[in-house]
């Protein structure tokens, strides 16, 4: 997993990525011209074959449209906040269960953007979050079911032009209130379990921005792990990268365990841990 790689390597990879996009930018008119029509063909992903080999080896990955849904806007109006939702499509009487999920954004600096592992208190593998999109890219939700099979659903997302950029709107405000966690219960789901949105105040710095005054790179500083339990039963454990937007948002479903509250622990790359509890209304 890219998640487990030492920091320096990850940063090096990210810099290479930036160099590559800069060169691609210089390649000029054919690219610019081809991208102006909206009905263009979606290109093949040049990044995916090596990503697949790196993270999944030679394991077969089947088409996942019947197992796992991925809602992402075709055109990302705000490249810094692109809402995506992964839907568990297995019916409740299906013997299989989704146990792990990966979110891959092919053309982001660290494509392996998040990994989720579901525990016994998860009501489903439904997950929603908000991500940054660095360039036109394929986005993938890959699910592993209990029988060890992999299933993948893919979407193509265009980051919008103009003033949209995958950068913070107000990094100082996010930093000043870092570690605040807000939980709210969402309405309107026909699935079993309770649907919760969890927000964490955090700048989620990518570590790639040059500070023009000091000429130093802002060090990377982002939320990299979240663990959620209901009483003594695990709902989910997740690891993630700065592909998630500033003030990371996570939506999930869980089965209450008696009257025990949800407990949440959020960790970041500076080894800070932020915690919260949520006692759902009966």
């Amino acid at each position, binding site marked *: 997993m890219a998640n487990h790689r030492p920091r320096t390597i990850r940063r090096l990879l990210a810099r290479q990525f930036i160099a590559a996009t800069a060169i691609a930018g210089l390649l000029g008119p054919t690219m610019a011209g081809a991208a102006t029509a909206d009905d263009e063909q979606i290109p093949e992903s040049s990044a995916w074959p090596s990503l697949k080999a790196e993270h999944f080896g030679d394991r077969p990955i089947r088409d996942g449209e019947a197992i796992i849904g991925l809602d992402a806007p075709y055109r990302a109006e705000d490249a810094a906040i692109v809402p995506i939702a992964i839907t568990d499509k297995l019916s409740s009487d299906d013997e299989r269960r989704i146990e792990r999920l990966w979110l891959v954004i092919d053309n982001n600096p660290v494509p392996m953007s998040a990994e989720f592992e579901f525990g016994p208190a998860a009501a489903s593998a439904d997950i929603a979050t908000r991500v940054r999109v660095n360039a036109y890219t394929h986005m993938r939700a890959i699910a592993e079911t209990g029988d060890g099979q992999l299933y993948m659903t893919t979407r193509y997302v265009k980051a919008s032009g103009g003033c949209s950029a995958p950068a913070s709107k107000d990094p100082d405000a996010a930093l000043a209130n870092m570690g605040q966690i807000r939980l709210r219960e969402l309405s309107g789901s026909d699935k079993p379990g309770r649907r919760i949105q969890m927000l964490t105040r955090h700048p989620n710095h990518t570590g790639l921005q040059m500070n023009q005054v000091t000429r130093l790179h802002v060090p990377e500083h982002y939320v990299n792990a979240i663990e959620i339990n209901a009483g003594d039963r695990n709902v989910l454990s997740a690891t993630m990268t700065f592909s998630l937007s500033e003030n990371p*948002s996570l939506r999930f479903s869980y089965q209450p365990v008696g009257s025990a509250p949800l407990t949440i622990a959020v960790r970041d790359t500076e080894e800070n841990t932020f915690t919260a509890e949520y006692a759902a209304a009966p």
Partner: protein
Amino acid sequence: MKRCRRFTPIRSKGPRAATIVLLLARPFRLMAIARWLAYRLLPAMLMAGSGAAGAALPVSEVAPGMFVHQGHTEQARSDNGNDIANAGFVVGDDCVAVIDTLGSPALGRQLAASVAHRTDLPICAVINTHVHPDHVLGNRALTGDDRPLFGHEQLPRALAARADGYLAAANRTYVADADTSWIVAPTTTVADTRRIDLGGRTLVLEAWPTAHSNTDLTVFDTGSGTLWTGDLVFIDRMPALDGSINGWLSVLDELSGRSDVKRIVPGHGPACAPWPAGSAPLRRYLSHLRTQVRDAIDQGRTIEQAIANIGYDRAQDWPLFDQVHRRNVTAAFAELEWE
């Protein structure tokens, strides 16, 4: 001299015939020819026609010695070269201040030519009203030779964080040669206020808390009572929220109470507009958006539901509504869910 008439909203026009032909003509060869015409042939012809000053952008004089270029009410495209924002200059007894540099070095050069066309005085200050590419990507053409470039204290950091995205978008949508030389950060940053003396004429720069963006800087010409708002005010063009909806509304409240401001030069729209009347449609849009997003959050709705449902009853009020409104709902939701 152009007077600021009473503000009347315009309706968006349908696509022009030439655009339709280009869209229908499936499209690449024609697009390439059009781009070549626009970027190689036309500037060459204009240069030949106007002599040493080069191709000057059209400007109108909205107060004595104050000139404004109006951008197109369009998205950045190859046929407009990202000429979509207002910019201009103010002439004192000794020298000239240029306010915003437009969306490419080519446009910046044309703006410099407009200055040379109107006055022999040198440019002694260049000001960026905020970070967005349609206002600052001409910096390279107007700076250098120790000429100060003023910007909000957050501008260097914001520009560095966004540079890659802006250049990639430029190369996708309106040019082929955008590179890092287009990114020129301010040499002098403003944390609160700063006065610039042009000789018998004083400009007051004022940095604002996060509002339209986190880099908003206004320029007040004390003599004429004219405030250059940058994108703190949009008129006849869909406003884009890239900062804080609460911050933006509160800055507009404060500016609306200023009795020394007689009129404004907005970041988009007419060359000038009466104040505070010119901000009324913008404030209505933002207030309405805020109310509806707060309601959605209170009702336990998701951000996707909010984006799909909120505010479309105002679509007919604004040109370019569709492209920008979804982003505004997204940004407002991500801010207001912390209230």
